[in-house]
């Protein structure tokens, strides 16, 4: 049976993320409540695993690192069809950069054991580094293909995938166990179903802390992060705006004149 781990992240709702702002005076993040949602790209990673499960015998384990509230998002993945949900949660894990996050998740995958494939979204909407997947692959000593947009063949030990490339694509052959990061083009994720939600109620989320992973505290969270943020600053108004006023027709006329003046027309 194929054992697939899907790494997911609970992120601030991208629709509300613009409320997260730097305070120009204190130069820290202004406190505000933004609800957590499943990182949009991770939905495609989970969907890929669910489609494989529909074809072959597979066990899907969703793995996430985050605060206890992220448990709801893991639960959501179980309602979508994942068999198992594991949340790595410990105060020590907080403040991790991409490297420490990759390490912690990799230790989670290692503890799960006998994993054939790891799927991740290619980036998270809040961090947007794209590093966690490939860095995990190194730590797990697995081959990796980033930005996968098509699973051409995923039967047997050797898979063929198509991945995004500047103005084109690349085709890769990769032997399991392997890690793939996926793009939006891979599939259209399914919506939550009522029966799924009911079934997920009975499923239990496993929570692992630092001691469960058996790793030293220096390797995770802030302490395990090679990079640190030293400064935050709000960006001042760069330009002063002049508004075109009047009716829609008048505004369009004013813009047309501006475009002619600027040599666009």
């Amino acid at each position, binding site marked *: 049976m194929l054992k697939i781990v899907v790494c997911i992240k609970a992120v601030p709702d991208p629709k509300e993320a*613009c409320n*997260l702002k*730097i305070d120009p005076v204190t130069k820290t*993040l202004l406190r505000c409540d933004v609800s957590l949602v499943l990182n949009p790209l991770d939905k495609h990673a989970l969907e890929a695993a669910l489609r494989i499960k529909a074809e072959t015998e597979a066990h899907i384990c969703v793995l996430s690192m985050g605060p206890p509230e992220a448990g709801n998002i893991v639960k959501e993945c179980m309602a979508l069809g994942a068999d198992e949900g594991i949340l790595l949660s410990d105060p020590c894990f907080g403040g991790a*950069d*991409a*490297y420490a996050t990759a390490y912690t998740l990799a230790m989670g995958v290692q503890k799960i054991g006998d994993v054939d494939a790891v799927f991740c979204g290619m*980036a998270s909407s809040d961090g*947007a*580094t*794209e*590093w966690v*997947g*490939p*860095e995990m692959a*190194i*730590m797990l000593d697995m*081959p*990796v293909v980033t*930005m996968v947009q098509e699973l051409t063949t995923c039967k047997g030990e050797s898979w063929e995938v198509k991945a*995004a490339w*500047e*103005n*084109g694509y*690349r085709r*890769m052959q*990769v*032997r399991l166990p392997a890690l793939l990061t996926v793009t*939006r083009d891979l599939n259209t994720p399914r919506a939550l179903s009522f029966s799924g939600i009911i079934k997920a109620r009975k499923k239990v989320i496993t929570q692992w802390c630092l001691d469960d992973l058996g790793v030293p505290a220096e390797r995770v969270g802030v302490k395990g992060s*090679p*990079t*640190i*943020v*030293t*400064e*935050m*600053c*709000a*960006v001042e*108004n*760069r*330009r*002063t*705006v*002049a*508004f*075109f006023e009047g009716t*829609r*027709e008048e505004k*369009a*006329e004013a*813009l*047309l004149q*501006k*475009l*002619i003046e*600027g*040599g*666009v*027309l």
Partner: protein
Amino acid sequence: MNIETSPIWVVAHQENCHLLPVTPQLVGQARKLADVLGTRVGVVLLGHGVDTQTEHLIAAGADRVYLGNDPDLAIYHPEIYTDVIVKLVNEHDPQIFLMGSTSVGRELAPLVAARLKTGLTAHCTDLGINRDGILEQKIPAYGGEITIVCPDRRPQMATVAQGVFPGPSPDNGRRGEVVPIQGPFPISGRIQTLEIVMDEPDGIPLDTASCVLAGGAGAGDLDGWSKIAELATILNAGLGCTRPAVDEGWAELETMIGQSGKMIRPETYLGIGLSGEQQHMVGVSGAKVMIAINSDKKSPVFHQVDYGIVDDCRAFVPVLLEKIRQYKEGQISCQ
């Protein structure tokens, strides 16, 4: 090795044996940083038939080019490239190591960084040296800018998109050294690049277009988006977009403007139905004239442009299109 004198390195990005513009741009910036630190610039160039490119790297500011010119390196292979680079870094201990935010760089950089157990900052929009000689890496975030450093581990690694730094004017009199990288380059059996296919990009290239339109979530749907595309065509302008337009499936990832996409400096920028997210605006802030259309007068985009139109772009763009058509017809009938 004394960290202060160890070199600054860049990975050269090439396509069909020609350097991508991001390569001299990074070498030029590495040169500036190296001059601040009083150290040398090294460039790693991998491929087959790329030996003719070494002089361009030296002219752009490199002191030494590590050249891997071999049939086994002709096509990007994640594990072979990672192995070659990690081995070189371990031999020479660069203090700073930069790659482009290209398809190769975005995969290779984290593979190399994880192997070297060091930090990696994504898609920087500025790089400088602080008083302690540490690399300051700037990225846009939360409507502002944050500074990231990697104080203890080496090398300090970062990726940078094309267009962030200007290309240096080549100095053909500069001298540098070419150091061949010795093979063999053992093929890993567990992953293989079968082929890389590249198409000609559609439409007017964003990097060189004098007028660029960018559309965002305000387009509303595919219909709204197609009106914006029509406007780009009639204006002979490049058509870019923000992240939400890619998420909605209206536009290709390659046309995304901003920190993790294209960084451009057009004469005229017209932002349509977008909110002025820092990650996007940083990609066009060098434009000469900036114009935005947004239905919300309080939108942050209006703090970052020269001219503003408060209107729903879905209603406004068709009216503008009609005006432009009339103008163009008038032009023709006058001739």
